[in-house]
């Protein structure tokens, strides 16, 4: 089955019957997933959005519940989950959602806010026919031609996309698109071959022994300690919670936090176990390349290259992977 490019707008309009459709677009100069509206500035050819799709499931600022304090103290839960269709997510984006699922849904505690949104999300992923110079997904085990956890996969053709249904939610999408699809498949384009390739094998072998390695003494020095890398990263999931108060009434919120901020690990009394950029950058890289692998069997980096593209200092996690691989241990 093929969706021709000329039918894309009709298809997106048809999908709005199923829920809010989010597409890669440009708003006020920022590339991100935006609610589809007819005539919007959508761009399915864009390799990667600057902002990742994680806020679809895990908003940067999420209202959790309202409350009043005092003798009439009361709580009211806030649930804003709605049916959403993430259209045109890249294979790395889909893989990043798999990482977030592991964090918020697996294990003893299920995050209700995430679960609510996740249950109502349909992922229509678009395989990549071209890669950006900063893409290194393949090195991180992501196939730019596929997205196993997507409900539907769009594989680019010369004139549109071939559709591969991968779940029941995907079937619902196909039904909504009936009448807009060609029965035959189009001529599929070969998947992108990112030029940036790094070798994770030696990293996997030794990184768990490298906490005290001298490599961290130099690696962090260009880092200015901003939150850019963590906020543009599709898999970084740290958050903090706190209320917004108006008199006796308040709203509890959670908002993205960043392990690169100096106050992230500040304890009561002022002690900070990660006092400098060295400990913070080490933590970020070790979390992505070591701790997460130990816990969930996969890296917390999907090789999307967003942090490489946007770091003010041009720090490059793919370069760090190489340096860790080359580092002498013992």
């Amino acid at each position, binding site marked *: 089955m093929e969706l021709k490019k000329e039918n894309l707008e009709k298809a997106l309009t048809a999908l709005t019957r199923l829920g809010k459709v989010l597409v890669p677009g440009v708003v*006020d*100069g*920022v590339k991100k997933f935006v609610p589809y509206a007819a005539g919007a500035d959508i761009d399915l050819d864009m390799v990667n959005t*600057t*902002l990742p799709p994680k806020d679809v499931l895990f908003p*940067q*600022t999420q209202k959790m519940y309202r409350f009043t304090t005092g003798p009439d103290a009361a709580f009211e839960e806030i649930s804003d989950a709605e049916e959403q269709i993430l259209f045109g997510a890249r294979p790395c984006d889909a893989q990043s959602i798999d990482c977030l699922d592991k964090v918020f849904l697996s294990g003893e505690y299920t995050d209700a806010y995430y679960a609510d949104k996740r249950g109502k999300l349909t992922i229509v992923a678009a395989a990549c026919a071209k890669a950006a*110079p*900063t893409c290194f997904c393949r090195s991180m085990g992501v196939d730019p031609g596929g997205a196993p956890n997507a409900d539907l996969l769009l594989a680019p053709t010369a004139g549109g996309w071939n559709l591969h249904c991968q779940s029941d939610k995907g079937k619902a999408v196909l039904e909504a698109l009936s009448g807009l699809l060609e029965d035959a498949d189009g001529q599929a384009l070969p998947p992108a071959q990112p030029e*940036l390739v790094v070798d994770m094998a030696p990293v996997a072998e030794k990184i768990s022994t490298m906490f005290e390695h001298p490599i961290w003494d*130099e690696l962090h*020095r*260009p880092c*200015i*300690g*901003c*939150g*850019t890398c963590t*906020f*543009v990263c599709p898999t970084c999931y740290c958050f*903090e919670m*706190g209320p*917004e108060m108006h008199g006796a009434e308040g709203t509890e*919120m959670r*908002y*993205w*936090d*960043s392990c690169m*901020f*100096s*106050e992230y690990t*500040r304890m009561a009394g002022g002690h900070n176990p990660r006092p400098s950029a060295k400990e913070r950058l080490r933590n970020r890289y070790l979390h992505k390349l070591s701790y997460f692998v130990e816990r969930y069997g996969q890296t917390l980096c999907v090789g999307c290259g967003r942090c490489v593209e*946007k770091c*003010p*200092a*041009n*720090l*490059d996690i*793919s*370069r760090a992977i190489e340096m860790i691989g080359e580092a002498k241990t013992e």
Partner: protein
Amino acid sequence: MSDVQNTLRDRVRSLLAEGKISCFIGWGPTRFKDRTIPKFANKPEDAGELVYNEHCLSNLAKYALDFQFSAEVAGIAVRGCESRAINRLIADGRLTRSKLYLVGIPCEGMLENGSTAEKCAFCRHRNPVVYDELIGEPVAEQENPPRFEQVLELESASSEDRYDFWQREFAKCIRCYACRNACPACNCMECYTEQYRTGWQGKQANTLENSVFGFTRAYHIGDRCIECGECERVCPMGIPLMKLNRKLVKDVESLFGSEESGLSDDASHALGCYDKEDLEEFM
């Protein structure tokens, strides 16, 4: 520029070998041809890895703060923008001149996506204003770059339009604080946004809290901004922060008659010093 690079490497190699400096802050290569990374040369052998080309976009001055508590002298490459940033940091009490060795490099502007970097377009000081030695010959300064052009344009809009403009821009802010961390005038030991349980700055990324941060930062540096454009360059959301900073710079210059920030390491600055002659229109 390859001449400058070679001379820079030679000089840094000697300075490190002679023990004149303990470390040199310059630029180094990345895997991408059009990007460099701040590079710290610790040993004479490291000098060969220094790079100088039209992609040296980072303003290095703030890295000098890494050595603020060190007893040794740190070396640093200074173009016009770095030299003014160093002056700013000294004037603000964050650095000591005698503990810095400044290797001046006259600059003809950097490239961003193939054309003159936005931050260099309005530069009035391509030659370092302070240095211990200079590599190469001074270059001609740009003649009257229209540094307030965008401000004048904004000033001519109605207040409603200006309000809408900034609301739309700050709606995009993700509160990564890259602007603050890159800015040489944002050099407080502890930023008000990081202070514990003061409640001054909500962490919510919404237009209101983002604007509180954006405008507070702009006011706080209004009389000290050296117009290096680093904040705007590093902003991942492309917010035109220099329009705001230059508006304040322009107002401070016209209201207080101050000179541009960072031309000397003299501590006086318009909003931080009391002067009986100051305007007091509203009192």
